[in-house]
């Protein structure tokens, strides 16, 4: 029996047929089989969050999940995220430097925004401490996520971003 199997994964809204080993993690499938290299390996151990994707609406470290477990699930990677408020906020508030942890961080933030639109500071910390950023001191990431949450919570009375820019 072949150690490879044929599966169809639903990634970024597209059905992606792929031959994978049972032992391949979702991260390996994304990067090596599908060329979706936005998800980054950092520890292969669930400690750093650089490989975070969204699976059925929840953030998931793709190094901690097998590719075969992805069948029948909706998977979103950074490549599937375009023009979102959090991406814009990361740019505006300088919330990254080397950019390596950024896709994972953004996926986690996006999931937080969707799941916990009224997140308190504690809730934000609880979610975002699962990713490591080694370049920033986290303040910029904090400003970025809070700006998006605040804006989406005050749609009637949008806060001008200008006032926070220098």
């Amino acid at each position, binding site marked *: 029996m072949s150690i490879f199997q044929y599966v169809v994964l639903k990634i970024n809204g597209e059905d992606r047929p792929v031959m994978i080993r049972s032992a391949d993690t979702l991260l390996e499938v994304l990067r090596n089989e599908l060329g979706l290299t936005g998800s980054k390996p950092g520890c292969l151990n669930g400690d750093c969050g650089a490989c975070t994707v969204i699976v059925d609406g929840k953030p998931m470290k793709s190094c901690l999940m097998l590719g075969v477990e992805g069948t029948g699930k909706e998977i979103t990677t950074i490549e599937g995220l375009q023009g979102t408020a959090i991406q814009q906020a990361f740019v505006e508030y300088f919330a990254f430097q080397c950019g390596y942890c950024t896709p994972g961080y953004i996926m986690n933030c996006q999931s937080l925004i969707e799941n916990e639109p009224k997140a308190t500071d504690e809730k934000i910390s609880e979610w975002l401490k699962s990713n490591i950023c*080694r370049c920033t001191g986290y303040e910029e990431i904090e400003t970025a996520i809070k700006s998006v949450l605040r804006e989406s919570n005050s749609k009637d009375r949008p806060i001008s971003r200008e006032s926070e820019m220098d």
Partner: protein
Amino acid sequence: MTNIGKSVIRKEALDKVTGRAKYTADFPSGEMLHGKSVISHYGHGTIKSIDVMEAKKEPGVRAIITGKQYPLTGEEIRDRPPIAFEKIRFHGEVVALVVADTPAIAKRAASLINVVVDPLPVVNSPSEGVSKDAPLVHDNVAEYEREEGVHPVPKTNIANHTKIRKGDMASGWAKSEIVIEENFSFPPSDHIPMETRSATAEIRPDGKVLITTSSQAPFMVKELLSQYFDLEVGKIIVKTPLVGGGYGGKASVQQEILAYLGSLAVEGRTVRMINEREEDMITSPCHMGLDAKVKLGCTADGYLQATELTYLVDSGAYSDKAIHLSRACAVDCTGPYFIENIWCDSYAVYTNHPYPAPYRGFSHAEVHFVFERAMDILARKLNMDPLELRYKNAIKPGHTTPTQVKLNRSTVGDVPMCIEKVKQLSRWEEGQLIELNERTVRAKGLACVWKNSTIPPESSSGAIITFNEDGTMNLMSGVVEIGTATKTVLAQILAERFRMSVNDIYVKMTVDTQSTPEHWKTVASRGTLMGGRAVLAAAEDAIRQIKEVASCVMKVRTDDLEIGNRRVFLREDPKEGLDFRDVVYGYTFPEGNAIGGQIIGRGNYILRNITYLDPETGAGNPGPEWAVGAQVVEVEFDRRDYTYKIIKAISVLDVGRVLNYKGALGQVTGAMSMGLGFGGRESFVIDDKARVLNPQLRTYRPVHFGEHPEYIVEFIETPHIDSPFGARGVGEQGLLGMPAALGNSLSLAAGVELHHLPLLPESIWRKKEGLNT
């Protein structure tokens, strides 16, 4: 000024937030093979046998190599076999390399290789390394090939000795009414870039060697591979795309050598190496440990008179950059103070630990922890405010440094002003120690910092600018984009010189040693000075060419012409002129004949008047300028359980000139975060057999979101005259005083002098209770 100081968004921003930014391991693999190292699980031992029979049987294994036939490597002393041969000298050392069709096959085969080792007694700290009956990590260091200016001590574990002899020690001690003597230490740790190192190598039939690597030093990879393996240097082509964090760690050349040897073993086919996190921490170079002794004396009114310092840099099993790191410890061996009489011995000492790469700050945060803790202890003995002690002794223009450089207003930043400002921002006057309740206290600790670079005198940087048909420009520099946004800052500098929008400048992100001019290494906070000066030179070159074409067309002298907004025009009447689009690709006259051609500007820069250090006194000019600063850390400390929270961290840095405000701010707070991690909890836990017990991010924890304090950063601007717009280094400075300031605040809070990093609650408790540390 329209571009300088503005928070210009980095050029590669959109790629980075959309997952399109490509790092070394992101390029498609195609016909690639995969390398996997077998690493040592012993700290020290003799290799009895390496059994590869089972591994060879695995289908898909293409080669298995061991260390036998390869030349020794190492930057200043050739002491390191790229793959261990006969002896293992540290936990994590590469013992064999498997090359296979897939990463999974390579890993399985590697796990089937059986290495039998006869353990040897270990050297587990640099202090042990210099003790009388220490085992020798290398039989005779003096027999290895080495660069000039390296001073090993034969048949010892000392790979290098740097001396500072300034003034007259006897008279210094005679004038010292108060003297302290203290010992400090910390174990090795790691940089933890989120991108682990990766490298691919391919050898073409004509002998071309193609390397792609996540390096801060692609030009050094080329140079060293050429030297180590006797290759024609022009045949080695090294590419570096975006790098996912470096902090010094990726300035060492290590994994590229393995990828090259792997490729050599499979007839030149492409071989990719990607470090797992564990390998990135212990197999590839780490951050140095240090044992230090300081004796410091001053008059009764607090004027420093003499200091005697011993630095034992944990060089690990191989000297590589430790030689240079130990030299840098000597160059700026004190804090930023004027002291007439200085005696310093700095040694790189072999141990059986992973060996160090540069680490953000290049020995300065390490030296500052020692010296700035000593300053606080001295202040306590004097019964003087530690801020006042520092203010009194701050080094200023006219003073001389430990290497006897006489400073001027350009070569050193304004230390007193940094102290005054940090005093105000930290509300120093409200008191250093405030009791919140019977359990909790708040305490502030201060550290002053300075840093020069010690890169080789002949290091240079180059830049090329080419024009597009529409008058926009392309900028190529050898500076690697490691996250510091230096490439964007270089574009700002170019835009400013051309008086045009930075949006009209395109930046080549990937460095390719065949087509990008050299920048020695992207290290030492010198990208902006050296790369910036090269860009300015290239701009002058291009402007001269543009004016020559325009002068011919307009029938005016070149020196009557100006440039701005993508036009060249008459100074007296700016309406008279030509658009760049009509000039930069050659000017075509109405008759059809043309002059000029694509304008290509080139420029380079080499540091000025840098000298080697005198081997007996250390006298010499190590680098172009000292950036300085003053930093405060404020903690809330629980006296019952010894836990603490870092509430605030403040930096006042003299950066000469802010070129990109938010970019500079991010560099500083990011460096502060890293420094607090280094001081607070990051270290290898090493057992008595010299094995690293925590090489993974669950047990070695960098600062996480939510653990960050409030950061307050203020910039002072005392220009460095040689630098573009006066800018000083800023990439490392935020880190330098953090471990010391944290140590000072916690020593005050706990009421006990703390001498060792990391500052864990348990170690504070042990010190307080007088238990073994």
